[in-house]
């Protein structure tokens, strides 16, 4: 089976004193085995709720979830054994030592003791030196790593990282990305949530965008980046055109309603690499000159993932 996680028709309504609140609306999502999936969304979009339901922390209102084919309610043991969860909040004990806390997690997930493996996990997260320290003496970044160590302690096949890099410095963030990649190389499926576009860009194989409880886009990162590769040239004309002259006509060329601006969409990546299949900016401007169309200004603009994201979310 190539699917690791399947979420179908999932809805969540939180019952509240001031009325009910629908946090998730008919979510459908499939995560493939071994991929890194980034779930992007603004505050309150429902990311944590979705993860919470998958992991058994929150009851779904309706819908069905399977993890590697195991229903997460009816067959919760089999489903949860496969899952490691790193929560968004830094929730740790205080008085336990790092080593005992991670060993505790392993036991909780039904695995026999394995100090050698715990050592390996702690070393990979640079926590081995802190193994005998009480958790309350750790810094925030160390606590974050401890939560990751706890989630990895039972050798999960799927890892949920709920905003793993919130409040984490640049270096640690890079370490974390490397760790996630290494996990992927070991065949672990990863779902991470983030507010940061760059993080999704850097890490993910596929990107999903969630907003107001709805998944509004799921796409291969490559496809998304391709969309990003597009640039737009805007030419501000001296005089309004009634229509685009036949000599210039091109699918990628558009005239504004008032006739004063021409916009031209082209593939910046191809342009830069010189393997272009369409005319370049220079060509177009030359042709405008030849046709005797005067212009007073030009402007180029690249749409960023950020913009795509914002325009999607604000729809």
């Amino acid at each position, binding site marked *: 089976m190539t699917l690791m996680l399947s979420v179908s028709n999932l809805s969540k309504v939180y019952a509240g004193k001031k009325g009910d609140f629908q946090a998730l609306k008919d979510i459908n999502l499939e995560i493939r085995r071994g991929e890194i999936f980034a779930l992007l969304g603004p505050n309150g979009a429902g990311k944590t709720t979705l993860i919470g339901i998958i992991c058994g*922390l929150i009851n779904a209102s309706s819908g069905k979830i399977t993890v590697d084919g195991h229903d997460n309610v009816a067959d919760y043991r089999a489903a*949860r054994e496969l*899952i490691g969860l790193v929560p968004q909040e830094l*929730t740790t*004990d205080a008085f*336990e030592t790092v080593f005992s806390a991670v060993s505790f997690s392993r*036991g909780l*997930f*039904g695995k026999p003791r394995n100090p050698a493996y715990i050592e390996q996990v702690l070393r990979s997260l640079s926590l081995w030196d802190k193994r005998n320290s009480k958790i309350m003496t750790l810094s925030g970044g160390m606590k974050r790593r401890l939560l990751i160590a*706890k989630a990895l302690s039972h050798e999960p096949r799927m890892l949920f990282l709920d905003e793993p890099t919130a409040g984490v410095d640049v270096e640690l963030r890079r370490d974390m990305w490397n760790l996630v990649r290494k996990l992927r190389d070991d065949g672990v499926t990863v779902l991470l949530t983030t507010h940061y576009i760059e993080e999704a860009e850097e890490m993910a194989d596929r990107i999903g965008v969630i907003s107001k409880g709805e998944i509004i886009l799921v796409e291969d990162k490559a496809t998304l980046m391709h969309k990003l590769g597009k640039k737009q040239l805007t030419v501000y004309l001296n005089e309004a055109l009634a229509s685009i002259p036949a000599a210039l006509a091109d699918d990628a060329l558009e005239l504004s309603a008032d006739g004063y601006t021409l916009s031209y969409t082209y593939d910046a990546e191809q342009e830069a690499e010189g393997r272009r299949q369409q005319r370049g900016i220079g060509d177009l401007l030359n042709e405008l000159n030849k046709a005797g169309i005067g212009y007073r200004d030009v402007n180029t603009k690249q749409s960023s993932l950020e913009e795509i994201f914002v325009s999607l979310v604000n729809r």
Partner: protein
Amino acid sequence: MKALNTNAIRAIYRFEMARTLRTLTQSIVSPVLSTSLYFVVFGAAIGGRIPEVDGIAYGSFIVPGLIMLSLLTQSVANASFGIYFPRFTGTIYEVLSAPVSYLEIVIAYVGAAASKSLILGAIILATAGLFVPLHIDHPLWMLLFLVLTAVTFSLLGFIVGIWADGFEKLNLVPMLIITPLTFLGGSFYSIDMLPPFWQTVTLFNPVVYLVSGFRWSFYGIADVSPALSLGMTLLFLFACIGIVAWIFKTGYRLKP
């Protein structure tokens, strides 16, 4: 159904027992100290002026009640704190996301709380032996009452720990319910020393049955028949089990 996740039960149980060891003073020393004070005050100071009750020296008479008093309050306190604290800090997420059944969660948390109370009960019994002469007519029955009471009230504490949404509520039940019920439950007197009306009222107090049955296992004297004591204890146990089952079935206060 799969076998129990014994590794998980062991992990939680160990975690809880380690917490006890860290807070040894609070968990063991302070109840022992307060019980000793009871002996000094009620046993030696006042007890000397109180005639025998049912043929037992007053100091000895109050021992079973005192053990019960500690057992009840400590069981409720331990179990309620044990489950409330991870809810409060949020670390409960790990238990809820683990492949652990509700039964296993209860066995681990309640088992740990009950174990602590039992250890405590044994220590208090030993302490009492230093102050007053003791004899135990029915040791097995005594053990049974101890275990049943520790488990039942640990379950009650577990329920309180899930119901509480603040530390005040956590202390409310032990303070406002358990302590009065134990003091009025015949720990320090025999029921028939009360006026008839209050004797009847007392019979609605579940602690009366525990103390009476427990005292019977020591001295063979009881306010109500031992069978009734056992029956009432079991009834209370099953009521608590029922509530815990409902809590998990609905996810009450555990899962939004």
